[in-house]
């Protein structure tokens, strides 16, 4: 029998029992749609949490802590395998003030190595990187924190610096928080570059980025005023950047083994991913139960179909239809139920998912009366193509399996008995 004739044959049979087949498809659709929508919630929550964690941080960044971090150690870190860059930032820990053209502000001095920063993704919005110890790059929001001196004490809205920063010189002073007066020593710095704005708009970058060459000057000023052995001018933090995401775990594990305290987003994400993998598998499992229930319907429908057509099957066999062909015709029928049910289910699931993502945040924020949640950008339901594939595979396989026994039964029909049946 030619394939198109087989399809024709199956179609004719389905037409004869439209209502029954329709109800069976409906059950298969509901089961599959339930599976997809249920699992899509797992995907949605996972995605939301991932985005929340990733935030502004870099996925291949590993924060490294050590009680005695120094340049020698940093150099050693740089030479490790799979390490792209090691950024050693040291920030001034005392009170600071900058003054530029009659505007003053408090900006944090961070000493770093620009070469490594560039490798790790530090970029400028304008200007260039410093070339000597008195040239600096300022954060993108530096000007926001520069307030006109004679408006400082007034009630009115203080006006901030609006002009261009490149090429401008400003004076930088340090002092102790517990003393009213700053140290008298001034350092004059030239702005040669402005850093790119941070990825998230709620993060402000007021920093002054300078090369490590400026450290001796700052230390001299500090020690001339403070002679406490224990107090330090700088506190440092080290970020190691792995070459790529796959290496993060290996690198951070190696560092941990050597006694460093280590924190990386990737580690946290990995735990999250493992958890959600199990969670999603659980949801798929629960959804599969719904499909299994629907499969009882398919089994019933196909068994009925075979019983009803016993005589016809007998005639077909008598004329010379092979048992294989009979089996295939019935399997095609149950597969068709499964396939059509799946297609409709996928369409419905995307619809439900879309509506859920639109409506649920509104309902939740209205119920809780909090704006924060609405602005938190929650995705309730995501249907990735992998989920569609998994659900389709489960649904169609289950349909075929439940059609298997009835189809076998059809091949076993005894010709003589079947021909004896009355019309």
């Amino acid at each position, binding site marked *: 029998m*030619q394939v198109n004739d087989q399809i024709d044959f199956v179609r004719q049979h389905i037409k004869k029992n439209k209502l029954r087949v329709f109800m069976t498809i409906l059950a298969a659709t509901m089961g599959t749609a339930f599976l997809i929508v249920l699992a899509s919630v797992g995907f949605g929550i996972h995605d939301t949490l991932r985005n929340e964690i990733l935030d502004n941080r870099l996925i291949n960044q590993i924060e490294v802590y050590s009680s005695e971090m120094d340049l020698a150690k940093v150099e050693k870190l740089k030479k490790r395998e799979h390490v792209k860059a090691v950024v050693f930032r040291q920030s001034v820990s005392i009170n600071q003030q900058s003054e530029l053209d009659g505007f003053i502000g408090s900006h944090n001095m961070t000493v770093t190595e620009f070469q490594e920063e560039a490798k790790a993704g530090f970029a400028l919005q304008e200007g260039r990187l410093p070339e000597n110890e008195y040239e600096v790059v300022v954060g993108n929001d530096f000007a926001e924190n520069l307030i006109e001196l004679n408006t400082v004490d007034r009630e009115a809205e203080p006006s901030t610096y609006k002009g261009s920063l490149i090429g401008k010189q400003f004076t930088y002073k340090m002092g102790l928080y517990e003393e009213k007066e700053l140290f008298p020593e001034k350092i004059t710095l030239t702005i040669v570059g402005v850093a790119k704005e941070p990825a998230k708009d709620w993060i402000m970058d007021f920093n002054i980025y300078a090369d490590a060459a400026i450290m001796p000057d700052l230390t001299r000023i500090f020690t001339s005023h403070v002679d406490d052995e224990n107090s330090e001018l700088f506190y440092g933090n080290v970020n190691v950047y792995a070459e790529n995401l796959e290496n993060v775990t290996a690198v951070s594990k190696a560092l941990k083994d050597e006694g460093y305290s280590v924190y990386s987003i990737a580690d946290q994400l990995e735990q999250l991913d493992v958890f959600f993998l199990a969670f999603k598998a659980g949801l798929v499992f629960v959804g599969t139960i719904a499909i299994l229930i629907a499969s009882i319907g398919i089994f019933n429908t196909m068994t009925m179909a075979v019983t009803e057509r016993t005589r016809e099957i007998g005639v077909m066999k*008598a*004329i*010379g239809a092979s048992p294989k062909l009979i089996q295939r015709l019935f399997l095609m029928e149950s597969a068709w139920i499964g396939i059509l049910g799946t297609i409709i289910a996928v369409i419905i699931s995307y619809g439900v998912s879309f509506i859920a993502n639109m409506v649920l945040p509104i309902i939740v924020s209205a119920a809780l009366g909090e704006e924060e949640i609405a602005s938190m950008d929650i995705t309730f339901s995501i249907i990735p193509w992998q989920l569609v594939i998994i659900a389709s595979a489960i649904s169609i396989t289950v349909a075929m399996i439940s059609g298997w026994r009835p189809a076998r039964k059809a091949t076993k029909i005894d010709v*003589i008995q079947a*021909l004896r049946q009355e019309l």
Partner: protein
Amino acid sequence: MIQVQELTHSFKIGKKGKERQVPVLKGLSFAIKEGEIVSIVGRSGSGKSTLLHILAGFLKPDAGIIQIGDVRTSAFSEAESAKFRLDHFGFIFQNFQLMPGLTAFENVELPLKLAGVAKKIRREKVQQLLQLVGLTEVQDHYPNELSGGQQQRVSIARALITDPPIIFADEPTGSLDSETEQDILLLIQSLNKTRGITFIIITHDDTVAETADRVYKMHDGELTEGGVGHAS
């Protein structure tokens, strides 16, 4: 064409544990030549239908050899048997056994579909054959919209459509009135003459037996030649 040796078959009857064997065919041996019309007569329950079922491959005999042409069909598997039927046999049943969901045309077409013949060729052949059996007018009728005689013609056309060398008929005129019966018998005879088809007809109707070249009588599980055949 058909050679049968020592064909034996018995049925198990009774409840489980208390079954007993009822022998139906007790070592039949006979031969049927190509182009013959052979009829098998005998009392009800004598085993005529059982013999036909075994020859057709619907039923496996307990013992014995059936050879059709050069092929030993008694050794066939179920699938082989089905394939062989499609190519070599046609069937005419007492109660026609048409597919209720198919029109006269589609019923005749069915064996060609099973054989995988292309649609265009199918149409032509079916049309031709419907003309031969005189059913062109009612080709789009469903079986329940046809008279008994018309239904039997449809089933004859269906049996003929694959040009089989052998046609088995189990009481082909059993549900027809005597006039229609005559029509059908004439059709069978002419097909036998023009196409050289071998017919094996089971009947307990003497009129039918008379059209046969030879008549076998089934009695007590044994087959004896002779009787009312027109050649005798």
